[in-house]
């Protein structure tokens, strides 16, 4: 959208949207929200960036390869963490576990925080990919 007003406002708003998304992801285990909702908000900020910056040939471009790599690495991270939890739970292994921490702190809740981060990244790029697929037919 070639609109100077929208672009200038977007420049101010997008960082706040992103910080809000990251806040929701990082506080997912403490308050309402989590990986999915935070990731959606992050993805929306990417979509908005693409909408308002595209006609001006923005410097920041998200390539298909980057999307694939971020998504796959997060999926692998999620799989490893959750798989570790499944195997130690099912096999009754007494292996080391991530400490639970003090309730209320960001670094608490064991595996929930890294899992939320992984989900957040996956959802963020998936939302963005959906938008670009429907918009252009490719990422």
């Amino acid at each position, binding site marked *: 959208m070639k609109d100077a007003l929208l672009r200038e406002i977007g420049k101010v708003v997008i960082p706040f949207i992103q910080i809000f998304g990251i806040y929701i992801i990082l506080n997912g285990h403490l308050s309402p929200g989590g990986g999915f909702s935070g990731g959606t908000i992050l993805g929306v900020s990417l979509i908005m960036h693409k909408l308002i910056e595209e006609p001006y040939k923005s410097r920041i471009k998200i390539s298909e390869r980057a999307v694939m790599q971020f998504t796959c690495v997060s*999926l692998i991270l999620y799989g490893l963490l959750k798989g570790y939890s*499944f*195997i130690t*739970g*099912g096999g009754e292994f007494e292996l080391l576990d991530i400490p639970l921490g003090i309730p209320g702190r960001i670094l608490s809740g064991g595996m929930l925080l890294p899992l939320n981060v992984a989900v957040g990244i996956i959802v963020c790029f998936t939302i963005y990919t959906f938008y670009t697929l429907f918009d252009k037919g490719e990422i």
Partner: protein
Amino acid sequence: MAAAANFPLLIILILFLSSFMMPVLKRVKAVKWLSLSSILLCVVLSVLTLAYVQQNGAFLYKVGHFEAPWGNELKIGYLEAIMSIMFTSIAALITWASFFSADYEIKEKNIMLYYTLCGMLLASLLGILYSNDIFNCFVFIELSSIAACGIVVVKDKKENIKAGVKYLILSSLGSGLVLMGIAFLYSITGNLNIGFIHQELVKVKDLYHNTLIISLGLFTVGLGVKSAMFPVHIWLPDAHTYAPSSSSALLSSLVLKAYILLYIKIIYRVFGIEIVKTLPILEIVLVMGAVGMIFGSILALLQKDLKRMIAYSSVAQIGYIFFGIGLGNILGLMAAIFHIISHALTKSALFLIAGNIIERIHSKEISRLKGIGIEMPITLGVFVVCALSMVGIPLFAGFNSKWNFALAIIDSNRILFIAVLVASSLLNALYYLPIIINAYFGEENTKDRVYMSKEKSLGALLPILILAFAIIYLGISSNGIIDLIAKSVSNL
């Protein structure tokens, strides 16, 4: 060996993780080897699981830190252990064969995606097989439908996308029906774990007779659509014809079978055969299976396209399997399970052969196959083995499954169905044998053909040769496997 209890979960994890590693890798060759090595590792783990089951019997495995009604469970018995060996080893052979055919059939940028989807597909099929939680099974069903549609459209041609969309719509319909069946069960039992559902169903079966009919009917139609039971098979011929040949082999030999195995689990574990026998559903399954045996073969007889003919032959063979389940006795179930194995071996080999032939003569038409036996003697030799097994000639796996079907029919006192079995076998012979005869004999057909001129390399032929040996082995000595199946059926 106590660690072997973890292997089923480990197999699913390895397949998922390795398949998501593939898009990150840069080189196509690395992707191919990663795919093959992860599946081979799963074959080894499956064999160890069977050894563990033979020592300790069937076991329940708690996934995660919570006990059964709250957490998920896997149940591994003989059936799961045998089938997981079959699934992983056939997938490994098909992957090996796809090394040689993928470059010809799939665009290079999609090859990585293809192997990712194959890994996901196999993992979700094994998930359906292992899981003891019916909703978990549904999640894996959804995952496998997406991956299966993916490997159909991966060729990126117009007719592929049409076939893929048809498959996607019908299989979504099927999984929707399964979900509704689960919802009915959940509303009357309050559980999703298969063992707990069964405990509750035994208590409330008289109160909810109609609900049980609706629920089992939804499962039958839903899983029937997904596994191409006769009147709802319409997606199968298109999807199998246009997909790359290695995808068709995977679809026909493994994907259809996982849903049938889930159906067996639903009948024998969720409902229990005593409850199912009070419902009229099994009779319908029996009739549909018998009709499918005949009509699938007749439709196959009318085809001019090689892959489409093999696809319709799959409809007929799935008819056999549903027929065996519909008989409702132990022998019928054993015959159905044995036929799942023998059909998986035969049909994967047939689709891989069809792929090889199409690659060499650049045509799908059966009329162009004349004299091909001189040009591709090894490929056609394996084709002969598979065709004879399909027809049910002694010394091949198909004979043993038909023999078991006949025994099951006699055991259930429905002697008339023997005629259906024989008629279907004769129809099989009618469409397979002309291909073989025209390929090898006839002066016009064999004139000017150069011996071995179009044969593929030995590496490419290895998977179909192994499958052919497996078919002959199952034909000559099936006792070991029949014993295992008998154990698995008695512990269902």
